[in-house]
């Protein structure tokens, strides 16, 4: 009887441990400094160009800079942890990024490094293989310096910059492959974006007709999606958005609407480190 109870208990414990592991949040204090920190590396979409603009406004061009905000500020707010915005507008991963990033990665005390890069590489039609190799370099550098990489696919462009999508789609495929080969967490922004915006030319998440940079709603969208990834929460159906809202203490109706559409959305005021 004692053996039976022991084995049964062990089985239950193992099952619980197994299921907990499958849903474990990605965030952890890997360097043991007592603080969980995130470094966001990328280009203007990480920096937050286009933020602060409401959906349905007509936007032809955007300034290269303004205050840095974008998804990193949402991530920080959603998860209540420090997030460093290291987005560099106009930077290609394969030219400036691969050169700049090693120093940033080595000097940061962040535990997790989020990579969202490639929109400017698409402008210059950099080959997907070149893109993959440089992203792998940075993933390797992050790993040997004790950081956990988190990869993000690229949202599709539209309208005036719809031509970039051919390359961003290929880069996203490379990102998925790298995530699988390196066993890394992946936020499939492209897939979630496509689900939210089946018609790209009327997508409320992006500045139109500029067609590349997300607007305030788009950055909210990325912030929620990435928060779910880092918390280990799925985002397949609207009910998942409710669970995310519960986890981050946000309004479930708003999170659901931002991520899955539906009722009209009033964008939350953008927040940034310079505001």
């Amino acid at each position: 009887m004692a053996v039976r109870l022991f084995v049964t208990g062990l089985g239950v414990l193992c099952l619980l441990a197994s299921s907990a592991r499958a849903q474990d949040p990605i965030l952890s204090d890997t360097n043991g400094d007592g603080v969980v920190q995130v470094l966001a590396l990328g280009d203007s979409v990480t920096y937050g160009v286009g933020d602060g603009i409401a959906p349905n406004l007509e936007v032809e061009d955007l300034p290269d800079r303004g205050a840095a905000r974008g998804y990193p500020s949402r991530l920080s707010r959603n998860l209540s942890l420090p997030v460093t915005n290291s987005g560099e507008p106009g930077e290609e991963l394969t030219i400036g990024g691969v050169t700049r990033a090693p120093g940033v990665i080595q000097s940061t005390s962040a535990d997790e490094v989020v990579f969202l890069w490639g929109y400017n590489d698409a402008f210059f039609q950099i080959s997907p293989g070149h893109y993959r190799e440089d992203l792998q370099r940075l993933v390797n550098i992050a790993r040997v310096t004790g950081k956990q990489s988190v990869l993000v696919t690229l949202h599709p462009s539209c309208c005036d910059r719809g031509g970039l999508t051919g390359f961003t789609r290929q880069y996203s495929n490379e990102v998925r492959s790298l995530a699988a080969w390196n066993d890394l967490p992946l936020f499939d922004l492209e897939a979630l974006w496509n689900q939210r915006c089946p018609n790209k030319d009327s997508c409320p998440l992006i500045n139109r007709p500029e067609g590349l940079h997300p607007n305030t709603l788009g950055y909210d969208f990325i912030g929620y999606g990435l928060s779910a990834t880092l918390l280990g929460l799925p985002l397949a159906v609207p009910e998942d958005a409710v669970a995310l809202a519960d986890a981050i203490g946000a309004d479930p109706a708003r999170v659901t609407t931002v991520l899955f559409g539906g009722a009209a959305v009033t964008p939350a005021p953008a927040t940034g480190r310079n505001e």
Partner: protein
Amino acid sequence: MVPTVVRECVRCFQQWILSAVIVICIVGCGGGGGGGEGSERGVRLIHGGLSLPPVSFALGEPGSARLAPAVPFAERSVGLAVGSGAQRIQVFTNGGTRVLFDAPTVLDAPDGTVVLVFEDGDLARTAVFPPGPKPAGNGNSGIRLINAVSGAPNLSMQVGDSKVTASLGSASPYIEVPSGVSPVTVLGQGVRVTLSVNAAAGTRQTVLLAGEIDYFVHSKVFEDR
């Protein structure tokens, strides 16, 4: 009619078997990935290619080959033990979809043989080299250098008054040193790495330098078996 005590015993046994199966299944599936077999001995792979995803290798002919699980950059795989003689070595990356090396190789001393994956410019290359001799001196240990720094044709390693050199994709001879902590300096054009190697008596240590010259170079120490 089956006595109650027997029914209870059968039910108890069924539950115990079910629980045991669950435990075995969980233990068997635990850890994820992996597969293959491995140990601290045998042929091992070292990944020194900065732009490469994790790399795995297999020994033997297809159908009977044994696979070592993939290792990431600057890591060493588990060992695959084989007998001496010709062995087919296959090295894979990109989730097993890209073959970096596939050739029969004569292994005179498989235990301690290293399969090194490194990069030479844009080329991913593979080198196989045998283990070095164990330290001869009583109470001594050995330290060697493996050069996997793309763009560094030669690196030299100095330990005390002794100095050895390793060309790209190769291992230097071991420097025999007294056991304990030894300060080590690795030099090359654009490379200067200093580190301490703590070696117990009778052991051999490998200092791996991997990466790309003028970009990123990482050092790691492995204890050889």
